[in-house]
Every structure is written in structure tokens, then in C-alpha cells.
């Protein structure tokens, strides 16, 4: 069975279901899927209270909009007032922000129900959501009927659960939360692919908006010049709804552009013959790309061509340096951004009182994991006086070359680029951890990272299942601030591929009670 595009908001408006019922259904699913470890904090009381208020509004015919009464989840590196925000690190365990991130406030102002804060790689550093102080996140697709059926064919004497696959990262908790139907949308963050990567591995739509479109105020920063809040949903329409609510200038974030932005509905494109799709085959067709992903990429290009679009091969000559460039810039900015964690004003503080420096050093040793410490040290290396010119400035120059590559391609008439998002479908956790975090990030970010360099909008669209029954997605990259056009094309593509919906074991077991509302779970938000 697959999704019927019915409308949750309409159902709420017509009273077919109340916000409280919807909230409770999602809370119950969160409990049932606890083993996924998607949530760090579940805000049950808050959500139910918000549901009650939403219900009142619907009764009085005063709903705030499409998102009123809709369960959402937020990655735990966004500040939420009165709710613990940990960044999955010991450094911030117990930290309760006194304010909401702008994007959180905007969602709450629309009446969305906050189900909880989701798990991530510590401080958003990683591509697996495996380096969290709260433990790794499991991909719900590890438990789907499709994956289990295919695994059953393989003899394995080990524990049933030992072959679970990763969600990807670093926004893995948010991806797992949406993919397991515990919410309709979730916020992630995207610095090198951290929203698009888990979206691909969990079969979701993952949007990285143009840099400067959505406020970063309250998003605990990793790389100020590349971070973007990301959106994870099951459908492109839903992502468009959320993006429309979040986009726009924020006086609290001076890196948001002042161009006027209005919420938008995506037109239903029927004619793609005027489009030009760019395929950066030369640089993106790497040997490590799995044959399945390659095949889907090729089929997608063919699909556009068969529908009349112009499909051209393009070149991004400096893109192969993107990962190295990112490594230098990222670690350098991290070295600076992590300096604020000294134990004095917030967060973890050690017991040493001998001197400020000794206190800072011990606090940071205790608070940060190896990955974070490693990046801080690398960053400090690149920022040393004798290295500054050769590494940091050099990387900034290479960044310009990469950004220019994209400008040149778009100036040649290309509307969007079509690329893979990841090298393959999700890999088993036990295999993933064989390499260290930096190596994995360098491998996994290869298709997504350059987009952050150039500040462009990009989206992952789930396309099909692998031989193992695991999701594979493809990425569209658009021109700066042409997010609406990007999502319009993505929506057309989504309609063509008809990606299958998860059949989680619990949902199957819980057949009767869920089936009548089962359509609800896989519904789109759109009115």
C-alpha cells in the first residue's frame, strides 16, 4: 500500500481527527519505536498542552494555518526555551536555553506541536548519527518489512538486531522520527549534507535552503558561513509549507537576506520541456558510487529527457577539492565556535578550581568527545600564524573557485543539477564504525558538501529501494534563492517515481486501529 495524498490539515479542520488524538497517536508511536533512539527528549506534556490549545482554535474556527496541530520534531542543536538542548554532548547536558531559535519560534507560532528534541552526531559533526553521547540512531528501515524479508534470505546466527543500518547524519534522529511516522516534519541542520544525507538513507525529502534564506539564530553554530537549518518531511509539498513559514529576514540573524519572502504553494508542473537539467557526470561519477545509485541516477536523467527536458552534461572542475577545502574551513570555524564552551556561563563545568585555564581545559576534555576535540585541534593547526596563509586563506580561495564553478554552470542555462546524494544505501552500523568519523565524513559528504560551499539550495528526493530494501535518493541543486523553482521541479520528479512508504512491523501489527488512521500517517499536510 502507498500513500494517498489526503490532507491532514483538512482532516483536522473537519474534525475527522482532533489535534489531541493526533498528538497521542504520535506519542504512542514514539514509545513503540523507542529502540530507534531517535529522540533525546520527548516533550509529552508540552505537546499535549499545545494540542489542547490547537483544539480550541479549531473549535472556534481560528486555526493558525496548515501547521496548526501538526506534530513536529526538532534536532537537538536548536535552542528551545525551557527544554533541555544538548547537541548530543556532555558539554551541554542539562543546559536549558532561555530562548527559542527563530525557526522554532516560527513553527510554534503556527501552532505546530513539539514532540521532542532529536538525536544527532555530537555537535552535528558526523555523517552517521553514531557519535552521540546518547548512543547511535537506528534507521527505521532496518525494521521494515522490505528489509527484513530480504535479510531473512541470508543465514545469520547472530542476534536478530545486530544488522541494523545507520540513518546517516548528522540529523539522523530527525530523519528517523519522520520516517517512523512519529511526526510530520522535523528540523535538521545542514553544513555539509547533514539533512540531505539522512534524508536519502531514510527515504525522505530533505531540504537545504539557500544560505541566507532561513534564520540561524538559535541554531548552535558549527560553520557560520555554511550552516543552514534543514527540513525533513515525507513529501515535497510538506517541505514547501514548512520552508514558506521559516524563510525570511530575521533581525536577529544579520546573515539573512532582506528580500521579501511569502509562503508559497508549489505549482503542479506538467510540462518540463522548457527545463534544462545539468548532470555533472565527469566529477560525480566516482568509482565508489554504487552501481544501484548510478543506475537510478542514469534512469532519472533519461526520465527528464523522455519528458522533453534538455539534459546536458556539465563540469564543475574544482569540485573534487571541495571535501579538502571543507575540511580546512570547517575545522577552522569549529575551533572558533567551540571556544565559547568554557564551563563558566552554561554547560558542563569540571571540579578543578586551580586556574581558569586548567578549569577550561578539564571542562572541555570532559565535555567534548574525540571527534569534536579532533576538529578543534585540527582547526587550531590551520589557524596558526605559519599555516594561516597556506591552509585557511588557501581554502577560502578554493571555495571561491568552487562557488564560481556553480555560477558558470547556471549561467550556461542550466536550471537545476541532478546528482546522487549518497554513494550507496544505508550501511550496517557495524560496518560503518570500522572507519573513523573524519574518514567517513569525507567519503559520505562527497556529493552534498560543495552545495554548502556555494550556499545553494538543494533537496534529496527518495527514488527507490535498493536490492536490500533500503532507500536510495537523488539530489537536485538549484540556483541561489530559487528554492521555489527547485522544489517545483522536485515535486514533479517525486510524482514520477512514487517512492514506497515504509511498512514498519509495528504498523503492520497494529493493523486495525492504525489502518483507519493509517492513511493519516502517510498523508501530506497540504490543503
Amino acid at each position, binding site marked *: 500500500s502507498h500513500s494517498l495524498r489526503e490532507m491532514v490539515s483538512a482532516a483536522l479542520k473537519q474534525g475527522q481527527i482532533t489535534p489531541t488524538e493526533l498528538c497521542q497517536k504520535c506519542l504512542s508511536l514514539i514509545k513503540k519505536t523507542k529502540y530507534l533512539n531517535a529522540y533525546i527528549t520527548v516533550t509529552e506534556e508540552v505537546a499535549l498542552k499545545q494540542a489542547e490549545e490547537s483544539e480550541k482554535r479549531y473549535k472556534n474556527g481560528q486555526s493558525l494555518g496548515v501547521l496548526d496541530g501538526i506534530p513536529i520534531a526538532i534536532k537537538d542543536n536548536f535552542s528551545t526555551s525551557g527544554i533541555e538542548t544538548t547537541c548530543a554532548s556532555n558539554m551541554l547536558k542539562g*543546559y536549558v536555553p*532561555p530562548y527559542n531559535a527563530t525557526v522554532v519560534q516560527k513553527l510554534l507560532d503556527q501552532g505546530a506541536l513539539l514532540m521532542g528534541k532529536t538525536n544527532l552526531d555530537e555537535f552535528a559533526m558526523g555523517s552517521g548519527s553514531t557519535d552521540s553521547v546518547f548512543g547511535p540512531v537506528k534507521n527505521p528501515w532496518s525494521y521494515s518489512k522490505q528489509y527484513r524479508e530480504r535479510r531473512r534470505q541470508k543465514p545469520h546466527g547472530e542476534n536478530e538486531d545486530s544488522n541494523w543500518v545507520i540513518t546517516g547524519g548528522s540529523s539522523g534522529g530527525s530523519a528517523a522520527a519522520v520516517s517512523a511516522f512519529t511526526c510530520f516534519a522535523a528540523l535538521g541542520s545542514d553544513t555539509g549534507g547533514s539533512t540531505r544525507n539522512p534524508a536519502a538513507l531514510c527515504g525522505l525529502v530533505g531540504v537545504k535552503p539557500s*544560505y*541566507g534564506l532561513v534564520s540561524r539564530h538559535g541554531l548552535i553554530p558549527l560553520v557560520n*558561513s555554511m550552516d543552514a537549518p534543514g527540513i525533513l518531511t515525507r513529501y515535497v509539498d510538506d517541505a514547501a509549507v514548512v520552508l514558506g513559514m521559516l524563510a525570511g529576514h530575521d*533581525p536577529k540573524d*544579520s*546573515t539573512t*537576506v532582506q528580500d521579501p519572502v511569502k509562503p508559497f504553494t508549489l505549482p503542479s508542473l506538467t510540462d518540463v520541456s522548457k527545463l534544462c537539467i545539468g548532470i555533472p557526470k565527469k566529477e560525480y561519477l566516482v568509482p565508489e558510487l554504487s552501481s544501484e545509485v548510478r543506475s537510478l541516477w542514469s534512469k532519472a536523467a533519461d526520465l527528464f529527457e523522455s519528458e522533453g527536458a534538455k539534459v546536458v552534461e556539465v563540469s564543475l572542475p*574544482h569540485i573534487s*577539492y571541495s571535501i*579538502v*577545502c571543507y*575540511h*580546512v574551513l570547517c*575545522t577552522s570555524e569549529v*575551533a572558533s565556535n567551540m571556544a565559547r564552551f*568554557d*564551563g*563558566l*556561563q*552554561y554547560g558542563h*563545568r569540571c571540579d578543578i578550581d*586551580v*586556574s*581558569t*585555564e*586548567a*578549569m*577550561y*581545559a578539564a571542562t*572541555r*576534555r570532559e565535555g*567534548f568527545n*574525540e571527534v569534536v*576535540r*579532533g576538529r578543534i*585541534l*585540527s*582547526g*587550531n*593547526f*590551520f589557524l*596558526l600564524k*605559519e599555516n594561516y596563509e*597556506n*591552509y585557511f586563506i*588557501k581554502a*577560502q*580561495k*578554493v*571555495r*571561491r*573557485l568552487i*562557488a564560481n564553478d556553480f555560477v558558470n554552470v547556471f549561467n550556461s542555462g542550466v536550471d537545476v543539477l541532478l546528482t546522487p546524494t549518497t554513494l550507496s544505501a544505508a550501511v550496517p552500523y557495524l560496518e560503518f564504525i570500522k572507519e573513523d568519523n*573524519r574518514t567517513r565524513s*569525507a567519503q559520505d559528504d562527497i556529493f552534498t558538501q560543495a552545495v554548502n560551499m*556555494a*550556499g545553494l539550495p538543494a533537496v534529496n528526493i527518495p527514488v527507490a529501494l535498493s536490492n536490500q530494501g533500503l532507500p536510495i535518493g537523488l539530489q537536485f541543486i538549484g540556483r*541561489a534563492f530559487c528554492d521555489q523553482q527547485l522544489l517545483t521541479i522536485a515535486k514533479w520528479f517525486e510524482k514520477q517515481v512514487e517512492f514506497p512508504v515504509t511498512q514498519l512491523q509495528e504498523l503492520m501489527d497494529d493493523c486495525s486501529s492504525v489502518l483507519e488512521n493509517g492513511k493519516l500517517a502517510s498523508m501530506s499536510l497540504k490543503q
Partner: protein
Amino acid sequence: MWARAVWLSLRAPFGGRRGFISTEDPQGSGRITAEMIEHLERLALVDFGSREAVARLEKAIAFSNRLHAVHTDGVEPMESVLEDRCLYLRSDDVVEGNCAEELLQNSHRIVEEYFVAPPGNIPLPKLDEQEPVLHS
């Protein structure tokens, strides 16, 4: 420790010039000296914690050296993708604040409206005066 002894003996004739990367291989393997380790730990105020971490940094440096193959003559460094736009500045009006109490709540050690810090201006002990931090 022997690496540090070697460097100390080399430092004097060079008048204190600190060359941290092994000079035979300036941009090759990126070997890290003990002095560099100490310097970075002091700047970053985090420690490596293990030899593996040092090895990882060496690998990271070797990885980053690939940047030098790119021709960037005449290319300006890019700091922000929004460099063509003006940064927004708010008008200089007080619109929020007076939340000292809220802000103090997240600290472990406060006295009245002060965050309490241990005494400053005390440098971290040098490597050979410290407990050995590097574990094998």
C-alpha cells in the same frame, strides 16, 4: 619525550624560531612534533588524549595538503557567499534585555549577579611538569 629534547637542542642556534613540522618533509606527511602537540593543546584548551588522536591529526594534515595542488593565483579568498550584499544592521535601540536572572540560571557557580571563575593569569603547567596526558 626524545623528540622534545631534540627540538630543544635545535631551538637555541635558530634564535627561537619554531619550525613545527619536520623540515625534511615540509608538506608531505605532516608529522607532528611534541612541541606542536603542546602548543595546540594550549591554544585549543583541549587535549589530544591519545597517540591515535595525534595520528589522526597527521592524517588530516596530509589530507589537507592536497589543497596546494590548486592554482589560486589572483583569486580572492571568499569569506561569505553573500559578499555582494550589505550586512543588515539594526538601529541602535534597546529592545530587550534585563534578563540577568535567566542567564545566571545556567551557570554552575554564581555569586549574586556574577559568574565565578577560578583565578586567571596562571598558565597551564608545561608538558614535562604535567601528569602525562598521552596514553599509549
